[in-house]
Protein backbone atom coordinates (compact mmCIF):
# COMPACT_ATOMS: atom_id res chain seq x y z
CA UNK A 1 0.00 0.00 0.00
CA UNK A 2 2.94 2.33 0.41
CA UNK A 3 3.35 2.56 -3.36
CA UNK A 4 1.23 5.69 -3.27
CA UNK A 5 2.79 9.11 -3.56
CA UNK A 6 1.04 10.08 -0.36
CA UNK A 7 -0.04 7.32 1.95
CA UNK A 8 -2.00 7.69 5.12
CA UNK A 9 -1.57 4.65 7.31
CA UNK A 10 -3.66 3.77 10.35
CA UNK A 11 -4.21 7.37 11.25
CA UNK A 12 -5.99 7.88 14.57
CA UNK A 13 -6.78 11.15 16.25
CA UNK A 14 -8.16 11.50 19.75
CA UNK A 15 -8.80 14.70 21.67
CA UNK A 16 -9.77 15.21 25.29
CA UNK A 17 -13.53 15.77 25.18
CA UNK A 18 -13.49 18.37 27.94
CA UNK A 19 -15.25 16.10 30.45
CA UNK A 20 -12.33 13.94 31.37
CA UNK A 21 -12.90 11.42 28.60
CA UNK A 22 -11.52 11.20 25.09
CA UNK A 23 -13.10 12.02 21.78
CA UNK A 24 -12.00 9.81 18.91
CA UNK A 25 -12.33 11.84 15.75
CA UNK A 26 -11.26 9.01 13.46
CA UNK A 27 -9.51 5.71 13.92
CA UNK A 28 -7.17 3.66 11.73
CA UNK A 29 -7.86 5.68 8.62
CA UNK A 30 -5.93 4.43 5.58
CA UNK A 31 -5.88 5.85 2.11
CA UNK A 32 -3.50 6.91 -0.60
CA UNK A 33 -3.14 9.74 -3.07
CA UNK A 34 -1.30 9.37 -6.38
CA UNK A 35 1.13 11.82 -7.86
CA UNK A 36 -0.58 14.53 -9.88
CA UNK A 37 -3.98 13.56 -8.56
CA UNK A 38 -6.62 16.06 -7.48
CA UNK A 39 -8.40 14.58 -4.48
CA UNK A 40 -11.31 16.23 -2.74
CA UNK A 41 -12.61 15.21 0.65
CA UNK A 42 -16.29 15.71 1.43
CA UNK A 43 -17.98 15.27 4.75
CA UNK A 44 -20.21 16.95 7.25
CA UNK A 45 -18.99 19.70 9.53
CA UNK A 46 -17.01 18.37 12.47
CA UNK A 47 -16.19 14.98 10.99
CA UNK A 48 -12.46 15.68 11.08
CA UNK A 49 -11.50 16.97 7.63
CA UNK A 50 -9.43 19.87 8.92
CA UNK A 51 -7.86 17.56 11.46
CA UNK A 52 -6.68 15.27 8.66
CA UNK A 53 -5.41 18.21 6.66
CA UNK A 54 -3.46 19.64 9.59
CA UNK A 55 -1.81 16.27 10.05
CA UNK A 56 -0.95 16.08 6.35
CA UNK A 57 0.50 19.58 6.57
CA UNK A 58 2.56 18.54 9.57
CA UNK A 59 0.98 21.25 11.70
CA UNK A 60 -0.57 18.69 14.04
CA UNK A 61 0.57 15.34 15.34
CA UNK A 62 -1.77 12.37 15.02
CA UNK A 63 -2.42 10.26 18.11
CA UNK A 64 -1.39 7.19 16.14
CA UNK A 65 -0.41 6.31 12.63
CA UNK A 66 1.85 7.82 10.03
CA UNK A 67 1.66 9.87 6.89
CA UNK A 68 4.27 9.13 4.25
CA UNK A 69 5.03 11.28 1.27
CA UNK A 70 7.39 9.94 -1.40
CA UNK A 71 8.22 7.17 1.04
CA UNK A 72 9.32 9.52 3.80
CA UNK A 73 7.42 9.99 7.00
CA UNK A 74 5.89 13.42 7.47
CA UNK A 75 7.08 15.09 10.65
CA UNK A 76 6.51 18.79 11.01
CA UNK A 77 5.57 21.30 8.34
CA UNK A 78 7.59 21.59 5.18
CA UNK A 79 7.83 23.69 2.05
CA UNK A 80 6.99 20.54 0.11
CA UNK A 81 3.48 20.71 1.47
CA UNK A 82 1.88 24.05 0.65
CA UNK A 83 -1.25 25.02 2.54
CA UNK A 84 -4.04 27.38 1.57
CA UNK A 85 -5.89 28.00 4.79
CA UNK A 86 -9.63 28.47 4.99
CA UNK A 87 -9.27 32.07 6.18
CA UNK A 88 -6.57 32.93 3.62
CA UNK A 89 -4.01 33.57 6.37
CA UNK A 90 -2.34 36.42 4.57
CA UNK A 91 -0.07 38.54 6.71
CA UNK A 92 -2.10 41.76 7.04
CA UNK A 93 0.87 44.10 7.40
CA UNK A 94 2.32 43.04 4.04
CA UNK A 95 1.05 43.98 0.60
CA UNK A 96 -0.34 41.31 -1.70
CA UNK A 97 2.98 41.18 -3.53
CA UNK A 98 5.00 40.97 -0.31
CA UNK A 99 2.81 38.14 0.89
CA UNK A 100 3.83 36.16 -2.18
CA UNK A 101 7.50 37.19 -2.05
CA UNK A 102 7.44 36.06 1.59
CA UNK A 103 6.76 32.56 0.33
CA UNK A 104 9.09 32.66 -2.66
CA UNK A 105 11.96 34.00 -0.58
CA UNK A 106 11.45 31.22 1.94
CA UNK A 107 11.61 28.63 -0.82
CA UNK A 108 14.45 30.01 -2.93
CA UNK A 109 16.75 31.50 -0.33
CA UNK A 110 19.59 32.19 -2.75
CA UNK A 111 17.54 34.10 -5.32
CA UNK A 112 18.11 37.82 -5.86
CA UNK A 113 15.45 40.24 -4.79
CA UNK A 114 14.57 41.12 -8.38
CA UNK A 115 14.11 37.49 -9.31
CA UNK A 116 11.90 36.84 -6.29
CA UNK A 117 9.69 39.79 -7.20
CA UNK A 118 9.52 38.76 -10.84
CA UNK A 119 8.49 35.22 -9.94
CA UNK A 120 5.90 36.48 -7.46
CA UNK A 121 4.40 38.81 -10.05
CA UNK A 122 4.17 35.96 -12.53
CA UNK A 123 2.08 33.91 -10.14
CA UNK A 124 -0.07 36.85 -9.13
CA UNK A 125 -0.89 37.53 -12.75
CA UNK A 126 -1.71 33.85 -13.19
CA UNK A 127 -4.55 34.32 -10.72
CA UNK A 128 -5.57 37.54 -12.42
CA UNK A 129 -3.92 40.08 -10.13
CA UNK A 130 -1.87 42.70 -11.91
CA UNK A 131 -1.03 46.38 -11.70
CA UNK A 132 -1.74 48.54 -8.68
CA UNK A 133 -3.78 45.91 -6.87
CA UNK A 134 -0.73 43.89 -5.92
CA UNK A 135 0.62 46.75 -3.82
CA UNK A 136 -2.49 46.88 -1.66
CA UNK A 137 -2.74 45.41 1.81
CA UNK A 138 -5.05 42.40 2.27
CA UNK A 139 -7.53 44.59 4.14
CA UNK A 140 -7.92 46.67 0.98
CA UNK A 141 -8.66 43.62 -1.17
CA UNK A 142 -11.94 41.80 -1.67
CA UNK A 143 -12.38 38.30 -0.28
CA UNK A 144 -11.88 36.79 -3.72
CA UNK A 145 -8.68 38.75 -4.32
CA UNK A 146 -7.30 37.69 -0.94
CA UNK A 147 -7.99 34.08 -1.76
CA UNK A 148 -6.17 34.49 -5.09
CA UNK A 149 -3.14 35.94 -3.33
CA UNK A 150 -3.20 32.99 -0.98
CA UNK A 151 -3.36 30.56 -3.91
CA UNK A 152 -0.58 32.41 -5.74
CA UNK A 153 1.59 32.19 -2.62
CA UNK A 154 1.03 28.45 -2.41
CA UNK A 155 1.58 27.71 -6.11
CA UNK A 156 4.65 29.93 -6.40
CA UNK A 157 6.39 27.63 -3.95
CA UNK A 158 5.94 24.58 -6.17
CA UNK A 159 5.03 22.31 -3.28
CA UNK A 160 4.88 18.61 -4.10
CA UNK A 161 1.53 18.49 -2.37
CA UNK A 162 -0.95 21.33 -2.19
CA UNK A 163 -3.42 21.27 0.69
CA UNK A 164 -6.53 23.41 0.39
CA UNK A 165 -8.90 23.75 3.36
CA UNK A 166 -12.25 24.98 2.07
CA UNK A 167 -10.45 27.57 -0.01
CA UNK A 168 -13.60 29.04 -1.50
CA UNK A 169 -15.87 28.69 1.52
CA UNK A 170 -16.29 32.41 2.08
CA UNK A 171 -16.78 33.42 -1.53
CA UNK A 172 -19.93 34.16 -3.50
CA UNK A 173 -20.87 31.75 -6.28
CA UNK A 174 -19.62 33.97 -9.10
CA UNK A 175 -16.17 34.67 -7.66
CA UNK A 176 -15.93 31.05 -6.61
CA UNK A 177 -16.47 30.01 -10.22
CA UNK A 178 -13.76 32.31 -11.56
CA UNK A 179 -11.21 31.16 -9.03
CA UNK A 180 -12.10 27.51 -9.55
CA UNK A 181 -11.33 28.01 -13.24
CA UNK A 182 -8.03 29.68 -12.38
CA UNK A 183 -7.15 26.89 -9.98
CA UNK A 184 -7.86 24.28 -12.66
CA UNK A 185 -5.79 26.21 -15.18
CA UNK A 186 -2.75 26.45 -12.92
CA UNK A 187 -3.10 22.88 -11.74
CA UNK A 188 -3.37 21.66 -15.33
CA UNK A 189 -0.11 23.39 -16.15
CA UNK A 190 1.88 22.06 -13.21
CA UNK A 191 0.55 18.56 -12.57
CA UNK A 192 0.70 19.22 -8.87
CA UNK A 193 -0.88 16.85 -6.39
CA UNK A 194 -3.80 18.55 -4.68
CA UNK A 195 -5.74 17.55 -1.59
CA UNK A 196 -8.74 19.76 -0.99
CA UNK A 197 -11.58 20.05 1.50
CA UNK A 198 -14.93 21.39 0.46
CA UNK A 199 -18.59 21.40 1.39
CA UNK A 200 -19.73 22.01 -2.14
CA UNK A 201 -20.66 18.90 -4.12
CA UNK A 202 -20.62 20.62 -7.52
CA UNK A 203 -17.24 22.13 -6.81
CA UNK A 204 -15.95 18.70 -5.86
CA UNK A 205 -17.23 17.11 -9.09
CA UNK A 206 -15.80 19.92 -11.21
CA UNK A 207 -12.33 19.78 -9.71
CA UNK A 208 -11.64 16.28 -8.49
CA UNK A 209 -10.20 13.13 -9.99
CA UNK A 210 -11.45 11.34 -6.93
CA UNK A 211 -13.72 12.27 -4.05
CA UNK A 212 -13.20 10.80 -0.60
CA UNK A 213 -16.41 10.61 1.40
CA UNK A 214 -16.28 10.80 5.15
CA UNK A 215 -18.95 9.57 7.55
CA UNK A 216 -20.01 11.66 10.49
CA UNK A 217 -17.92 11.72 13.61
CA UNK A 218 -17.00 10.64 16.18
CA UNK A 219 -15.25 7.52 14.86
CA UNK A 220 -15.55 8.98 11.39
CA UNK A 221 -14.35 6.88 8.49
CA UNK A 222 -13.18 7.68 5.02
CA UNK A 223 -15.83 5.31 3.73
CA UNK A 224 -15.74 5.66 -0.04
CA UNK A 225 -13.49 6.84 -2.77
CA UNK A 226 -15.60 7.94 -5.71
CA UNK A 227 -13.91 8.26 -9.08
CA UNK A 228 -15.08 11.18 -11.16
CA UNK A 229 -15.52 9.60 -14.55
CA UNK A 230 -15.94 12.84 -16.45
CA UNK A 231 -13.13 13.62 -18.86
CA UNK A 232 -11.10 16.80 -18.63
CA UNK A 233 -10.98 19.60 -19.51
CA UNK A 234 -14.19 20.24 -17.64
CA UNK A 235 -16.25 23.40 -17.51
CA UNK A 236 -18.99 24.22 -15.08
CA UNK A 237 -21.65 24.20 -17.79
CA UNK A 238 -20.16 21.35 -19.76
CA UNK A 239 -20.07 18.73 -17.01
CA UNK A 240 -23.80 19.04 -16.38
CA UNK A 241 -24.49 17.51 -19.79
CA UNK A 242 -22.23 14.54 -19.24
CA UNK A 243 -24.19 11.33 -18.65
CA UNK A 244 -22.20 10.53 -15.52
CA UNK A 245 -22.77 13.87 -13.86
CA UNK A 246 -26.15 13.30 -12.24
CA UNK A 247 -25.39 9.71 -11.38
CA UNK A 248 -22.28 10.77 -9.47
CA UNK A 249 -23.99 13.76 -7.96
CA UNK A 250 -26.90 11.65 -6.72
CA UNK A 251 -24.55 9.16 -5.22
CA UNK A 252 -22.77 11.93 -3.33
CA UNK A 253 -26.01 13.54 -2.20
CA UNK A 254 -27.31 10.22 -0.94
CA UNK A 255 -24.13 9.55 0.90
CA UNK A 256 -24.06 12.91 2.62
CA UNK A 257 -27.79 12.93 3.22
CA UNK A 258 -28.31 9.45 4.63
CA UNK A 259 -25.44 7.01 4.57
CA UNK A 260 -22.92 9.30 6.28
CA UNK A 261 -25.20 9.18 9.30
CA UNK A 262 -26.07 5.49 9.01
CA UNK A 263 -22.41 4.48 8.75
CA UNK A 264 -21.24 6.72 11.56
CA UNK A 265 -20.28 5.77 15.06
CA UNK A 266 -19.28 2.27 14.03
CA UNK A 267 -16.22 1.39 15.97
CA UNK A 268 -14.39 -0.84 13.54
CA UNK A 269 -11.38 -3.05 14.00
CA UNK A 270 -8.29 -3.00 11.86
CA UNK A 271 -7.30 -0.62 9.10
CA UNK A 272 -10.17 1.22 7.51
CA UNK A 273 -9.74 1.54 3.75
CA UNK A 274 -12.26 3.38 1.64
CA UNK A 275 -14.27 1.37 -0.83
CA UNK A 276 -13.61 2.44 -4.42
CA UNK A 277 -16.75 3.43 -6.26
CA UNK A 278 -16.77 3.87 -9.99
CA UNK A 279 -19.88 5.16 -11.65
CA UNK A 280 -19.71 5.17 -15.43
CA UNK A 281 -22.79 5.27 -17.58
CA UNK A 282 -20.85 5.66 -20.79
CA UNK A 283 -19.47 2.13 -20.41
CA UNK A 284 -22.93 0.66 -20.81
CA UNK A 285 -24.74 0.55 -24.15
CA UNK A 286 -25.98 4.03 -24.83
CA UNK A 287 -28.65 4.91 -22.36
CA UNK A 288 -31.13 7.11 -24.21
CA UNK A 289 -32.47 8.89 -21.20
CA UNK A 290 -30.37 8.78 -18.07
CA UNK A 291 -33.00 9.56 -15.50
CA UNK A 292 -31.30 11.56 -12.73
CA UNK A 293 -33.29 9.89 -9.98
CA UNK A 294 -31.98 6.47 -10.96
CA UNK A 295 -29.94 4.65 -8.39
CA UNK A 296 -26.49 4.78 -9.93
CA UNK A 297 -24.89 1.58 -10.93
CA UNK A 298 -22.19 0.85 -8.45
CA UNK A 299 -19.14 -1.17 -8.98
CA UNK A 300 -17.16 -1.75 -5.89
CA UNK A 301 -13.53 -2.56 -6.39
CA UNK A 302 -11.36 -3.52 -3.53
CA UNK A 303 -8.01 -1.81 -3.51
Amino acid sequence: MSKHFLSIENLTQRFPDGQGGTLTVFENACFGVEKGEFVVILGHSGCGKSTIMNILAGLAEPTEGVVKMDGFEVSGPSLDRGVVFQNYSLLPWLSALSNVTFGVRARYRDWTKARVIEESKTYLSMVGLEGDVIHRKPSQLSGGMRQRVSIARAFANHPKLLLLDEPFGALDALTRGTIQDELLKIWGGTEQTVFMITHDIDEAILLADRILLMTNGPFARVAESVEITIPRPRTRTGIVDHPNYYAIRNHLVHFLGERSKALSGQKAEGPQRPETVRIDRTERAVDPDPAPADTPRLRAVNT
Partner: protein
Amino acid sequence: MLGTLSVNQRAAILSIVLLAVGLLVWEAAIPAQKAAEDLTEYERLTGGGAPKAGIPPPSDVIAKAWEQLSDPFYDAGPNDKGIGIQIGYSLFRVLSGYAAAALVAIPLGFLIGMSPVAYRALNPFIQVMRPISPLAWMPLALFVIQDSELSAIFVIFICSIWPMLLNTAFGVAGVRSDWVNVARTHELGHLKTAFTVILPAAAPTIVTGMRISIGIAWLVIVAAEMLVGGTGIGYYVWNEWNNLDLTSVIFSILVIGVVGMLLDAAFAALQRGVAYVE
Protein backbone atom coordinates in the same frame (compact mmCIF):
# COMPACT_ATOMS: atom_id res chain seq x y z
CA MET B 1 -18.98 81.78 7.14
CA LEU B 2 -17.90 79.24 9.76
CA GLY B 3 -19.98 76.60 8.05
CA THR B 4 -17.61 76.44 5.07
CA LEU B 5 -14.59 75.52 7.24
CA SER B 6 -13.57 71.98 7.97
CA VAL B 7 -13.90 70.52 11.44
CA ASN B 8 -10.16 70.87 11.95
CA GLN B 9 -10.15 74.52 11.00
CA ARG B 10 -13.06 75.28 13.29
CA ALA B 11 -11.37 73.42 16.13
CA ALA B 12 -8.17 75.40 15.56
CA ILE B 13 -10.04 78.70 15.68
CA LEU B 14 -11.79 77.65 18.88
CA SER B 15 -8.46 76.64 20.45
CA ILE B 16 -6.93 80.02 19.67
CA VAL B 17 -9.98 81.85 21.04
CA LEU B 18 -9.86 79.78 24.25
CA LEU B 19 -6.14 80.50 24.64
CA ALA B 20 -6.63 84.22 24.10
CA VAL B 21 -9.55 84.40 26.55
CA GLY B 22 -7.61 82.38 29.14
CA LEU B 23 -4.56 84.62 28.87
CA LEU B 24 -6.70 87.77 29.07
CA VAL B 25 -8.53 86.59 32.17
CA TRP B 26 -5.23 85.61 33.78
CA GLU B 27 -3.64 88.94 32.87
CA ALA B 28 -6.68 90.86 34.15
CA ALA B 29 -6.77 88.92 37.41
CA ILE B 30 -3.18 89.70 38.41
CA PRO B 31 -3.19 93.50 39.07
CA ALA B 32 -5.90 93.09 41.71
CA GLN B 33 -3.43 91.03 43.74
CA LYS B 34 -0.65 93.45 43.17
CA ALA B 35 -2.29 96.57 44.50
CA ALA B 36 0.08 97.07 47.41
CA GLU B 37 -1.82 100.00 48.93
CA ASP B 38 -4.78 97.69 49.63
CA LEU B 39 -2.72 95.33 51.75
CA THR B 40 -3.43 95.24 55.43
CA GLU B 41 -0.74 95.96 57.99
CA TYR B 42 -0.57 92.23 58.75
CA GLU B 43 -0.05 91.24 55.14
CA ARG B 44 2.66 93.84 54.71
CA LEU B 45 4.45 92.49 57.77
CA THR B 46 4.29 88.87 56.67
CA GLY B 47 5.65 89.67 53.26
CA GLY B 48 2.33 89.22 51.45
CA GLY B 49 3.20 92.20 49.32
CA ALA B 50 6.67 91.07 48.33
CA PRO B 51 6.84 91.52 44.58
CA LYS B 52 8.19 88.07 43.72
CA ALA B 53 5.64 86.08 45.73
CA GLY B 54 2.75 87.02 43.48
CA ILE B 55 1.57 84.91 40.57
CA PRO B 56 3.10 86.56 37.50
CA PRO B 57 0.90 87.74 34.65
CA PRO B 58 1.19 85.90 31.33
CA SER B 59 3.00 88.82 29.78
CA ASP B 60 5.86 88.26 32.25
CA VAL B 61 5.89 84.56 31.42
CA ILE B 62 6.02 85.30 27.70
CA ALA B 63 8.85 87.75 28.24
CA LYS B 64 10.67 85.11 30.27
CA ALA B 65 10.10 82.53 27.58
CA TRP B 66 11.48 84.90 24.97
CA GLU B 67 14.53 85.60 27.08
CA GLN B 68 15.15 81.91 27.82
CA LEU B 69 14.45 80.57 24.37
CA SER B 70 16.58 83.18 22.63
CA ASP B 71 19.62 81.76 24.46
CA PRO B 72 18.67 78.26 25.62
CA PHE B 73 22.16 76.84 25.98
CA TYR B 74 24.03 79.34 28.13
CA ASP B 75 25.93 77.95 31.08
CA ALA B 76 26.75 80.30 33.93
CA GLY B 77 27.63 77.96 36.74
CA PRO B 78 25.87 75.08 38.51
CA ASN B 79 22.75 77.06 39.45
CA ASP B 80 22.31 79.02 36.27
CA LYS B 81 22.04 77.07 33.05
CA GLY B 82 19.86 77.64 29.99
CA ILE B 83 16.57 75.80 29.67
CA GLY B 84 17.90 73.91 26.65
CA ILE B 85 20.76 72.45 28.71
CA GLN B 86 18.40 71.44 31.49
CA ILE B 87 15.97 69.78 29.08
CA GLY B 88 18.94 68.08 27.44
CA TYR B 89 20.01 66.55 30.75
CA SER B 90 16.49 65.33 31.45
CA LEU B 91 16.06 63.90 27.97
CA PHE B 92 19.40 62.14 28.20
CA ARG B 93 18.36 60.47 31.46
CA VAL B 94 14.92 59.57 30.20
CA LEU B 95 16.17 58.16 26.92
CA SER B 96 19.01 56.13 28.39
CA GLY B 97 16.86 54.66 31.15
CA TYR B 98 14.10 54.06 28.65
CA ALA B 99 16.39 52.43 26.09
CA ALA B 100 17.81 50.11 28.73
CA ALA B 101 14.27 49.21 29.77
CA ALA B 102 13.28 48.50 26.16
CA LEU B 103 16.34 46.30 25.68
CA VAL B 104 15.29 44.20 28.66
CA ALA B 105 11.50 44.39 28.37
CA ILE B 106 11.01 43.55 24.71
CA PRO B 107 13.10 40.34 24.53
CA LEU B 108 11.84 39.26 27.95
CA GLY B 109 8.28 40.06 26.92
CA PHE B 110 8.79 37.91 23.82
CA LEU B 111 9.90 35.04 25.98
CA ILE B 112 7.00 35.43 28.37
CA GLY B 113 4.53 35.78 25.52
CA MET B 114 5.77 32.65 23.75
CA SER B 115 5.97 30.41 26.79
CA PRO B 116 3.06 29.88 29.14
CA VAL B 117 5.49 28.45 31.70
CA ALA B 118 7.66 31.58 31.69
CA TYR B 119 4.53 33.68 31.92
CA ARG B 120 3.27 31.86 34.99
CA ALA B 121 6.68 31.78 36.62
CA LEU B 122 7.35 35.50 36.22
CA ASN B 123 3.84 36.82 36.68
CA PRO B 124 3.89 36.99 40.52
CA PHE B 125 7.08 39.06 40.45
CA ILE B 126 5.69 41.42 37.86
CA GLN B 127 2.46 41.85 39.79
CA VAL B 128 4.35 42.81 42.95
CA MET B 129 6.91 45.08 41.30
CA ARG B 130 4.58 46.92 38.98
CA PRO B 131 2.52 48.91 41.51
CA ILE B 132 5.61 50.21 43.34
CA SER B 133 6.06 53.94 42.84
CA PRO B 134 9.32 54.32 40.94
CA LEU B 135 10.49 56.96 43.41
CA ALA B 136 10.33 54.42 46.21
CA TRP B 137 13.33 52.76 44.57
CA MET B 138 15.35 55.96 44.87
CA PRO B 139 16.87 55.42 48.34
CA LEU B 140 17.80 51.86 47.52
CA ALA B 141 19.22 52.92 44.16
CA LEU B 142 21.27 55.70 45.75
CA PHE B 143 22.62 53.31 48.35
CA VAL B 144 23.46 50.49 45.96
CA ILE B 145 24.61 52.48 42.95
CA GLN B 146 26.27 55.28 44.95
CA ASP B 147 25.78 57.68 42.09
CA SER B 148 22.91 60.14 41.79
CA GLU B 149 23.07 60.35 38.00
CA LEU B 150 22.85 56.58 37.55
CA SER B 151 20.19 56.35 40.24
CA ALA B 152 17.96 58.72 38.32
CA ILE B 153 18.46 56.65 35.18
CA PHE B 154 17.69 53.50 37.15
CA VAL B 155 14.43 54.99 38.37
CA ILE B 156 13.46 55.75 34.77
CA PHE B 157 14.44 52.21 33.82
CA ILE B 158 12.31 50.65 36.52
CA CYS B 159 9.24 52.79 35.79
CA SER B 160 9.26 52.32 32.03
CA ILE B 161 9.92 48.59 32.01
CA TRP B 162 6.49 47.36 33.13
CA PRO B 163 4.16 48.68 30.44
CA MET B 164 6.61 47.56 27.74
CA LEU B 165 7.07 44.13 29.30
CA LEU B 166 3.39 43.46 29.79
CA ASN B 167 2.33 44.78 26.40
CA THR B 168 5.03 42.83 24.59
CA ALA B 169 4.05 39.63 26.37
CA PHE B 170 0.37 40.28 25.71
CA GLY B 171 0.96 41.16 22.06
CA VAL B 172 3.19 38.17 21.40
CA ALA B 173 0.84 35.74 23.13
CA GLY B 174 -2.05 37.09 21.07
CA VAL B 175 -0.47 36.59 17.64
CA ARG B 176 -2.93 34.55 15.61
CA SER B 177 -1.83 30.94 15.32
CA ASP B 178 -2.70 31.08 11.61
CA TRP B 179 0.13 33.51 11.02
CA VAL B 180 2.54 31.40 12.99
CA ASN B 181 1.39 28.41 10.94
CA VAL B 182 2.20 30.35 7.77
CA ALA B 183 5.74 30.75 9.08
CA ARG B 184 5.88 27.06 10.00
CA THR B 185 4.71 25.85 6.60
CA HIS B 186 7.41 28.03 5.05
CA GLU B 187 10.06 26.38 7.22
CA LEU B 188 11.16 29.62 8.85
CA GLY B 189 13.45 29.16 11.85
CA HIS B 190 12.61 30.47 15.30
CA LEU B 191 14.55 33.69 14.91
CA LYS B 192 13.18 34.38 11.45
CA THR B 193 9.63 33.67 12.63
CA ALA B 194 10.13 36.04 15.54
CA PHE B 195 11.33 38.87 13.31
CA THR B 196 9.23 38.43 10.20
CA VAL B 197 5.92 37.27 11.68
CA ILE B 198 5.59 37.70 15.43
CA LEU B 199 7.27 41.09 15.71
CA PRO B 200 5.20 42.81 13.00
CA ALA B 201 2.05 41.09 14.24
CA ALA B 202 2.60 42.22 17.83
CA ALA B 203 4.15 45.59 16.94
CA PRO B 204 1.01 47.69 17.46
CA THR B 205 0.58 46.33 20.99
CA ILE B 206 4.29 46.65 21.75
CA VAL B 207 4.44 50.26 20.55
CA THR B 208 1.37 51.10 22.63
CA GLY B 209 3.31 49.84 25.65
CA MET B 210 6.32 51.90 24.60
CA ARG B 211 4.16 55.00 24.32
CA ILE B 212 2.71 54.49 27.79
CA SER B 213 6.24 53.96 29.13
CA ILE B 214 7.71 57.12 27.66
CA GLY B 215 4.80 59.09 29.13
CA ILE B 216 5.43 57.65 32.59
CA ALA B 217 9.20 58.17 32.26
CA TRP B 218 8.72 61.84 31.48
CA LEU B 219 6.37 62.21 34.47
CA VAL B 220 8.86 60.53 36.76
CA ILE B 221 12.02 62.32 35.63
CA VAL B 222 10.79 65.67 37.00
CA ALA B 223 10.20 64.21 40.45
CA ALA B 224 13.44 62.21 40.33
CA GLU B 225 15.50 65.27 39.45
CA MET B 226 13.87 67.24 42.25
CA LEU B 227 15.24 64.56 44.58
CA VAL B 228 18.72 64.08 43.14
CA GLY B 229 19.31 67.71 42.18
CA GLY B 230 22.18 69.14 40.19
CA THR B 231 20.84 69.32 36.67
CA GLY B 232 17.74 68.67 34.63
CA ILE B 233 14.37 70.28 34.21
CA GLY B 234 13.03 68.88 37.50
CA TYR B 235 15.93 70.41 39.37
CA TYR B 236 15.40 73.65 37.47
CA VAL B 237 11.76 73.88 38.63
CA TRP B 238 12.76 73.20 42.20
CA ASN B 239 15.61 75.67 42.08
CA GLU B 240 13.43 78.47 40.68
CA TRP B 241 10.85 77.72 43.37
CA ASN B 242 13.57 78.17 45.97
CA ASN B 243 14.45 81.46 44.31
CA LEU B 244 10.74 82.35 44.44
CA ASP B 245 10.94 83.02 40.72
CA LEU B 246 7.42 81.91 39.84
CA THR B 247 7.72 83.26 36.30
CA SER B 248 10.45 80.72 35.62
CA VAL B 249 8.47 78.01 37.39
CA ILE B 250 5.46 78.57 35.17
CA PHE B 251 7.64 78.81 32.10
CA SER B 252 9.37 75.51 32.88
CA ILE B 253 6.03 73.81 33.59
CA LEU B 254 4.97 74.79 30.10
CA VAL B 255 8.25 73.50 28.66
CA ILE B 256 7.77 70.16 30.45
CA GLY B 257 4.33 69.92 28.92
CA VAL B 258 5.53 70.72 25.41
CA VAL B 259 8.45 68.26 25.54
CA GLY B 260 6.14 65.54 26.89
CA MET B 261 3.74 66.23 24.08
CA LEU B 262 6.50 65.96 21.48
CA LEU B 263 7.71 62.65 22.92
CA ASP B 264 4.17 61.33 22.82
CA ALA B 265 3.69 62.58 19.26
CA ALA B 266 6.84 60.74 18.16
CA PHE B 267 5.46 57.47 19.50
CA ALA B 268 2.05 58.18 18.04
CA ALA B 269 3.74 58.46 14.65
CA LEU B 270 5.57 55.19 15.25
CA GLN B 271 2.26 53.62 16.23
CA ARG B 272 0.71 54.69 12.94
CA GLY B 273 3.74 53.29 11.14
CA VAL B 274 3.32 49.78 12.53
CA ALA B 275 -0.48 49.66 12.55
CA TYR B 276 -2.30 47.23 10.25
CA VAL B 277 -5.89 46.33 9.60
CA GLU B 278 -6.80 42.66 9.87
